[in-house]
Every structure is written in C-alpha cells, then in structure tokens.
C-alpha cells in the first residue's frame, strides 16, 4: 500500500508520515499540489490524504488532477475547517473528511476501509 500525504504544513505532514512508518505503512509526503503531481508521475499511489486548503492548489483541484494520472487512486481529505467533521463518513461525492488534529488510529482505520470497503 503506497500512501501520499499532501499538506503545506510541513512539520505536521512529516510527523504524520513518520508515525505511519512506525506502524509499517509506506507514506510519501508532498508540500504542495504541484509536488504531489510530480511524485504521482513516478509512483502509483493507492491513496492520497489531502489538505483541503493549500496555497496554489486546493485539495479538490488536486484530487481531479491526480485522478487524471492515477484513475484508481482513493482520497481522504484532512481539514482544519470547523464545520467539517464527518468522522470518516463519505459525503454525497463519496469524499471522506477528517478534522485536524487527527487521531492516528482513526486515520489508519479510514485508510484501510477506503482501500478495502468490504472490511
């Protein structure tokens, strides 16, 4: 399982990648939408965890562009927005949102369910 984490908050995303790695998950980081698209050219990621608000390119725009490169990739959105916290339940567009600060166990469970909906 290859995970791509994208957020302009570099300390947050680096620490998250480290914690996922300690739990045996393979996570790459990108600090912008453009960097994420570059990485996706070289690596067939299974899932991307995207910050919604980033300078230059929003998480939603990045989702559309990543899907052009990797049609099977799945998504989880992470947000600091106060009113969006659906505890991992998909919305009408089948997008899943998790609120910051994250719970690492919730994130891992959501990643697994996203990649294996039958679990």
């Amino acid at each position: 399982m290859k995970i791509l984490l994208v957020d302009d908050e570099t300390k947050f995303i680096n620490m998250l990648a480290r914690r996922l790695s300690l739990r045996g998950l393979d996570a790459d980081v990108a600090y912008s939408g453009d960097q994420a698209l570059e990485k996706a050219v070289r690596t067939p990621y299974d899932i991307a965890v995207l910050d919604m608000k980033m300078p230059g390119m929003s998480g939603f725009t990045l989702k559309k562009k990543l899907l052009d490169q990797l049609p099977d990739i799945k998504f989880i959105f992470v947000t600091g927005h106060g009113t969006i916290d659906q505890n991992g339940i998909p919305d009408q567009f089948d997008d899943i949102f998790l609120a910051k600060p994250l719970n690492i166990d919730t994130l891992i469970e959501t990643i697994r369910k996203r990649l294996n909906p039958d679990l």
Partner: protein
Amino acid sequence: MTSRASDLVHNQGLQFFGSVNASISHELKNIFAIISETAGFLNDLTQLSKQGQTFDLSLLENCSNSIAEEIERGFDTIRQMNQFAHSVDDPVKETRIHDTLALAVKLTGFLSFARKTRLDPSGNGITVVTSPFLLQALIYRTLSAIYQSLDIGDELTLTLQEFDPSSVTLVFSHDRPVDPSHFSDLRVAELADVLKAVFTKTDTGLTLTLPRENIDLKDLGSVG
C-alpha cells in the same frame, strides 16, 4: 456613529469579523495538529523504549523544540486575534495606520491564497482619525483582492506616504497593475465610500488615499 457607517458596521462587520475569526481558528487548528502529532510521536518513542528498542536521543530534542515553536506561533496568533478583537472598542479613534496595516498583513497571511508581503517601516508614526474597524476591513479586503490577482511567487510591498497635509496614501506595489476583475466586490466600494478613501490604479499596483481626519465620522463617538 453616522447612520451609514453604523449600518455598514452592522451589515458587513459581523460577516468580516466571522471570516477573520474562521481563518484564525483554522491557523490554530493547524498548530494544534502539529503539537498533537508531535506528542503522539513522543508517545510512540516511549512505547518503543518500553519494548527495549533504542533510538537517537536527538529525536526527543527535535520534538520538544518543535512543540515550543508551535506554542510561540500559537501565542503570536492569539495576540493578533486579541488585537483584532479590540479594533471594535472605539467607533472612531486616532489610529496608527502602520499598526492597522501590520495587523492586516498578518491576518490575511492566514489565507491560503496570501502572497509574500513586505511592510515598509517608514511612516510608522502616521495617524488618521477614522473608524479603526472599518479601516481594518477595507485594508483586509483590499489585500485579499490583490493577492488573488498575483501569481504564487509574487511579492507585494506596502508603503505609507504623505503627499499633502490633509491625506495619507497607502501604496500597494508589485510588478504590474492590479486586475480589476478582483475588485468587483461591492463591499470594498462601500467601505471606501464611507471612509472617504480613494483608490487609484497605477502601473505597478494600486494606491489608496485616506483623509487625515474623516469629518463625517467625527460624531460617531470617542476620539482617543
């Protein structure tokens, strides 16, 4: 407060207050997210240590430094929130315009489309008698509109100038004229009208000229 200015505070003010506070809370959530992940990582290291695994002790130092940095960032954000909250204390006040600009630069810095902005230190002592809250709203919305007309690597410079004794001019300069399509927000025009502020498009950006004293606002209340 004149009825028009008073209406503006009530109609636009609450919305402006809300949107600024939303961006501040977003910033604070990011700070808490970093502290939370760092604390979680420290817990991970503790568990590894309990299992007899060794790790580089510099990791602990990095974590504690990171937490301290984020706490300082949080305090700075809360200082700005507090300063912004107090901008409604006096309906009209002698206002150091440099302070208003500095706060607007920091508050708009939380927006995802913000651009690198440098505030020229000259003109630090210049004051105007105006509504500090409406002025803050006007400058915030002006900066937001300019950011949207700039590319991601562009830089904006803000300078205060005094061309005549009765007015103060804020110069928003970068490398090209602003795109007028980003100034279609009627709220900006409404604010400028009440504050008697005049926008002028230039080859390198935009100027905003404010009266040194807005006589129409004088009967609003205290002038500190």
